[in-house]
């Protein structure tokens, strides 16, 4: 059995596994839903996630211990992950293959030659690690932007899955929407399409995880190399070389991804290419090719980048008020130290309310999860802690229902608040437009409700009428332009000289009929005035009870800019964004 066959099987196996995990990251207990499938396996195996969080938090979160296995295997065997495991790598491998299928051998060899630009990925790695290692509160974890596992997870979760499921609606009852994802899509598409220019473009030039593996594989026990000093130098071994490491000459071990295509392609009868302990007899280069200047440059940019970005003050006084984080999220500086922007929380959220943040929330918060209450089936469901259970790095801490609702052991602390709802009195139907509506109050899920109403009677437009005659409970008016039954909805009252109010049962174009339960204390005299009033229940938010779940915002019938909106003031996770003293 050829080793390349096993490698291909391995790629298919892990890619299928990855896609399967993307599918099952669906809320529920069936076998094709979450259950306890290890959906974060690839993220846990990713050493860049572990290293990044170690640098920012000085701890190794327990679920990331798998990365140690990857590290140990890489130190011993080399960059096996890139061509045997990585689902993103498999995509690039496939598209690279598609792109160079019709080319001649010479053309392919030329495409796979080593290029100096392959050292760019090391600079990217250095840059990302420096920003993560920045001292104390200023550290920020941005590895998730280019780390392939979070990147491909994000691309699948937020783009490919919703598109695929959009027509069949198996995974989700209704179409799932994700905001600002065209950028994610553009990057994914660009990375995939660049394989038609140079195979494994992303892997060779950009991937910081590959760069990390390159550094780790310096001392690998076994490496690809030639077993004899001379061969015919046909360079056929480089036809399908995935890593562009030039096995025919001084093989660059740091670039070799162990695809074994060179061994497969070697034309000599007695295979020259070996996976051997001794270094290649044609020479090998173990160190990544980074110039000192490049190293210093990436170091310096990393050091400068963090304070430069923080000048915007987005985690201090200039914090974006619409940055509402999922329940259980750590305070913002801590959150940014852990979030790898993998999109798992957004994928699992049963109400589709978690969205990737755009650039407007600050550069560091790009693609981190925030709530957008207008999208999805409802705000944040009261009894749901799905996102906190799935976060691979504990940027969203694992919480229990008790902690979220403030029951059981957490009675003293009270419920977790995501923010506070604010009634926009200029847009609310009952505040601004004299239209009865208490949808927000009805849907408020906490008990006692955080939205309460106060009754208010408002005289309608053209509602001041003159009495002509009173017959029983019907008042005939001088004005005769009333719309038939307009006031019959049960919300309208007729106010007689300010004191008595009678509910209007029906009306014609010139007569109002009041409910029989009202007995006139004094029959309105001819010529006296009556007011037609609408009974409104105007909503008020009780900020001590509001947990900022956003269900009210979601249900508000003013569907564009909602008349009740949640913003993050009062969120439990921050000490400096308190609303109440």
């Amino acid at each position, binding site marked *: 059995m050829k080793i390349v066959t096993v490698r291909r099987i391995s790629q298919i196996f892990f890619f299928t596994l990855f896609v399967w995990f993307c599918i099952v990251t669906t809320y529920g207990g069936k076998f094709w839903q979450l259950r306890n499938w290890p959906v974060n396996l690839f993220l846990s195996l990713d050493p860049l996630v572990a290293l990044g969080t170690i640098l920012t938090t000085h701890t190794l979160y327990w679920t990331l211990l798998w990365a140690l296995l990857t*590290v140990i295997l890489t130190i011993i065997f080399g960059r096996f992950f890139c061509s045997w495991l990585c689902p993103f790598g498999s995509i690039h491998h496939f598209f690279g293959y598609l792109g160079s299928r019709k080319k001649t051998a010479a053309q392919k060899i030329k495409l796979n030659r080593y290029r100096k630009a392959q050292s760019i990925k090391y600079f990217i790695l250095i840059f990302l690690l420096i920003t993560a290692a920045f001292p104390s509160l200023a550290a920020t974890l941005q590895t998730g932007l280019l780390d392939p596992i979070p990147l491909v997870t994000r691309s699948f979760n937020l783009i490919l899955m919703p598109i695929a499921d959009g027509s069949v609606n198996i995974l989700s009852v209704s179409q799932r929407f994700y905001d600002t994802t065209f950028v994610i899509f553009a990057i994914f598409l660009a990375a995939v399409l660049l394989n038609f220019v140079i195979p494994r473009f992303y892997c060779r030039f950009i991937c910081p995880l590959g760069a990390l593996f390159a550094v780790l594989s310096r001392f690998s026990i076994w490496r690809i190399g030639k077993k004899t000093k001379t061969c015919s130098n046909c360079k056929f071994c480089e036809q399908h070389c995935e890593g562009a490491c030039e096995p025919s000459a001084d093989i660059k071990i740091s670039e070799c991804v162990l695809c074994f295509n060179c061994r497969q392609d070697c034309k000599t009868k007695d295979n020259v290419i070996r996976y051997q302990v001794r270094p290649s007899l044609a020479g090998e280069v173990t160190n990544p090719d980074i110039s000192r200047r490049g190293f210093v440059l990436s170091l310096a940019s990393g050091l400068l980048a963090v304070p430069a970005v923080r000048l915007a003050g987005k985690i201090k006084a200039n914090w974006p008020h619409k940055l509402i984080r999922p329940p259980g999220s750590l305070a913002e500086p801590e959150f940014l130290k852990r979030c790898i922007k993998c999109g798992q929380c957004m994928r699992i959220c049963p109400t589709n309310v978690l969205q990737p943040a755009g650039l407007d929330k600050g550069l560091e918060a790009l693609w981190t999860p925030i709530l957008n209450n207008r999208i999805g089936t409802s705000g944040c469901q009261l009894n749901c802690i799905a996102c906190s259970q799935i976060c691979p790095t504990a940027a969203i801490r694992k919480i229990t229902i008790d902690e979220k609702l403030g029951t059981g052991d957490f009675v003293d602390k009270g419920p977790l608040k995501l923010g506070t709802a604010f009634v926009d009195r200029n847009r609310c139907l009952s505040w601004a437009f004299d239209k009865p509506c208490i949808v927000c109050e009805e849907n408020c899920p906490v008990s006692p409700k955080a939205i309460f109403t106060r009754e208010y009677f408002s005289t309608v437009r053209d509602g001041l009428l003159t009495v002509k005659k009173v017959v029983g409970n019907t008042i005939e008016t001088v004005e005769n332009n009333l719309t038939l039954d307009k006031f019959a909805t049960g919300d309208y009252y007729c106010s007689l000289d300010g004191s008595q109010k009678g509910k209007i049962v029906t009306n014609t174009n010139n007569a109002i009929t009041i409910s029989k339960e009202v007995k006139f204390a004094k029959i309105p005299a001819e010529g006296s005035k009556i007011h037609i009033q609408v009974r409104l229940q105007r909503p008020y938010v009780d900020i001590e009870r509001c947990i900022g779940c956003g269900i009210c915002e979601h249900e508000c019938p003013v569907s564009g800019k909602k008349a009740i909106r949640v913003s993050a003031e009062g969120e439990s996770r921050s*000490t400096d964004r308190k609303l109440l003293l």
Partner: protein
Amino acid sequence: MNEKNEQQLNRRRFLARAVKAGLSIAAAGVIAKTLYDRQGPSAQPPSDLVTIPDFSIPAVQGRTISIVKGPDRVKTVDKAIDLLGGIERFVKPNETVVIKPNVAFTSVPALGATANPGLVAEVIRLCYSRAKAKRVYITDNPINNPASCFTISQIGKAATQAGAEVILPKLNLFRPTTLEKSKYIRNWPVLYEPLAKADKLIGIAPVKSHSRAAASMSMKNFYGLLGGRRNLFHQDINTIIAELVMLVKPTLVILDGTETMVTNGPTGGSFSDLKRTDTVIASCDPVAADSFGCSLLGLKPADLPYLAKAQSAGAGTADYQSLKPIIANVT
């Protein structure tokens, strides 16, 4: 021969590589083990709030407050401290002492708006020669420009001559603190770093009248440890003064009533504002010290609401008599 050498070289190289690989694996393992976090992060964000240490020493009945009358500050302060057990009771050998004198204004010593440099120097001397302290620091966060204050008040010179080091209130020495159950000291910057390395804290303040607070004595002296826009608190001056003694628990306070500023305090400006009252008070309880000190201003404890506030908060007692003050005279 060459081949054998080459083989040996290869073997050596391989061994070197294998060892390096093994060490890398070991290093990775060690890092993973030491940083392993099973719990995950907690709800509370890591806070950089500090707590000012409690510098007080165990109380001894009848040796809490001493009141010494006499014209010579140096002699009266010596006596006052001796009556409470001597400096050795308060400062142990090899300890670090921070003295917080009133250096609030760019005011010459004779005007009595700042602590008397000779008095400060004497306390420093006691710390070094008798108590065998390792190091004595002087610090304050003045109202006027710090460097100028230390210079013009002559406290800076007196201190360095006596062997102490002056710590100017640079911004990076401040840290935020929150005092439990307090109204104003919440997440508020205090001059923490000098106190962080101290074992003992001694406050030295003159007795002055105060336009807003009625009096500025040993309690108000600790206003000089606050940072930020602290003048905000003048709107509720009595509460903030009471909270100061809840925040800061000194080892000892020296209240200098040798020349009391009875009018136009706290800055004074004219020698006629001063009255010779020839009294120095040493006290482990700043509230008690102030409750006696106000008498030098012709006031009663009841005239100072912050005394009652502090007492009800448990920060000291406004009834200095109950502490059985030791009274003495020194000529």
